[in-house]
Each structure stands twice: as C-alpha cells, then as structure tokens.
C-alpha cells in the first residue's frame, strides 16, 4: 500500500463517529516492562507485562445537543464502559485499512480548556480495559 496522508481518519466513540470534530488521534499500544535481568549476561533482560493500551483524541469542542460534550460527559459521569474505534480512513476495515477497537473508560475530561481567542478543544485519553486494543481487518 502506498504511503498515507491522514485526511479522513474514522473515530467513533460509543458508536458515534466524530471525525468532523477531531483534529488528532493516537493509538497507543503499550505493555509494562518486567525486568528479568540475571547473572547470565552483562546486560539487562526484560519481558512484556500487562497491556496498557489507550487512544488519545483531540476533540474540537461542541456543546450542541448530541455532540462532543453531550456525548463525552455521560461517559465520564456515569463511569460507563464503551467502545472506541479508530481506522486510518473512513472506508470499511480491510487489510489496508485496519480498525483498532477497544472497550474503554473515560477517567479524565476537561470540558473547557483554552486561551482567549483560541479554538475550544479538549484532549481526551481513553484507556483500554482488560484485553487492550484489538486490530482487525474486516
């Protein structure tokens, strides 16, 4: 596949697409580092530990009904688990357009953040629960 310029990433939170209100997205795949260094070598040794995946999304804030704030606040306030899905493009998931999905929670949310004269944006981190972020091509 050709190199890709991100133009139409698909970002859905609890089944609701927000691509038109998102300016950046990051899929973080991470595992804890568990050190197993021992006397058999001259350097450190480590194995992978628990997953600690997350999505980081920068929303352009919108307080209208059924929009960014109206969607995110109940997820934060009700301590609800929900799905987040991200794809490189809005096309259906495929081998060249994988989708990354996870069951997430919202533990921190800044509904208002910004300087005078700036666009109201809010950066949100969605930590993935239990199984972490899954990659699928269909």
């Amino acid at each position: 596949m050709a190199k890709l310029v991100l133009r139409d990433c698909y970002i859905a939170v609890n089944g609701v697409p927000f691509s038109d209100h998102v300016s950046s997205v990051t899929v973080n795949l991470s595992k804890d580092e568990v050190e197993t260094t021992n006397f058999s070598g001259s350097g450190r040794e480590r194995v992978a530990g628990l997953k600690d995946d997350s999505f980081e999304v920068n929303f352009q804030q919108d307080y209208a009904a059924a929009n960014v704030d109206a969607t995110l606040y109940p997820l934060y306030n009700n301590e609800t688990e929900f799905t987040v899905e991200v794809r490189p493009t809005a096309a259906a998931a495929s081998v060249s357009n994988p989708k990354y999905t996870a069951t997430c929670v919202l533990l921190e949310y800044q509904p208002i953040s910004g300087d005078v004269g700036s666009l109201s944006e809010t950066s949100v981190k969605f930590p993935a629960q239990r199984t972490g972020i899954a990659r699928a091509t269909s």
Partner: protein
Amino acid sequence: MSGLSGSQPYVSQPGYTTHAPPAAQPQRAAEPVKRAYKVVGPREVFGAHKGETVELALTEGEETALIEAGHLVRANTNRPVGRERKGN
C-alpha cells in the same frame, strides 16, 4: 460462629489479624441487550442515521450514555427485541 472442626467454637487467637470482607468490586459492563432504538440526534449511531429505527445490542451503560447525550430514544416498546417467549 462455629469453628472449622464443627464442634469447637471459633476463638480469635492473639496476634492474628482479622481481615475485613472483600470490598465491592467495580462492576463490569453488563451483558448487552438487543432493543429497538430511534436515532434522534444529528449524528449517525452505529451506522444508523437520524430518523431511522435500528436494533442495537447495548449494555445498560452504553444505552444510558447515548440516550442522555440525545443520540437515541427507545423505539415504541421497552420489550427486548429478539428474545423468544417462553413456550415458543
């Protein structure tokens, strides 16, 4: 409270720590229930557009959040869709 042997009563021994019962565990998402919903917000929800009625399998938390946000309302009936009645 009876002891482990059954006949002797349980006596707390000096130096033993009495542990509190396990704290309540955080609730995991309940099993999703399939119901009919009408999309009332301007955004599509799970691929359904405004005005459409769609059957979705949502957990209670997901449903509450979508209804509070103004994306969905339950369609006509509160009866779960897709469940067979007893005796059928």
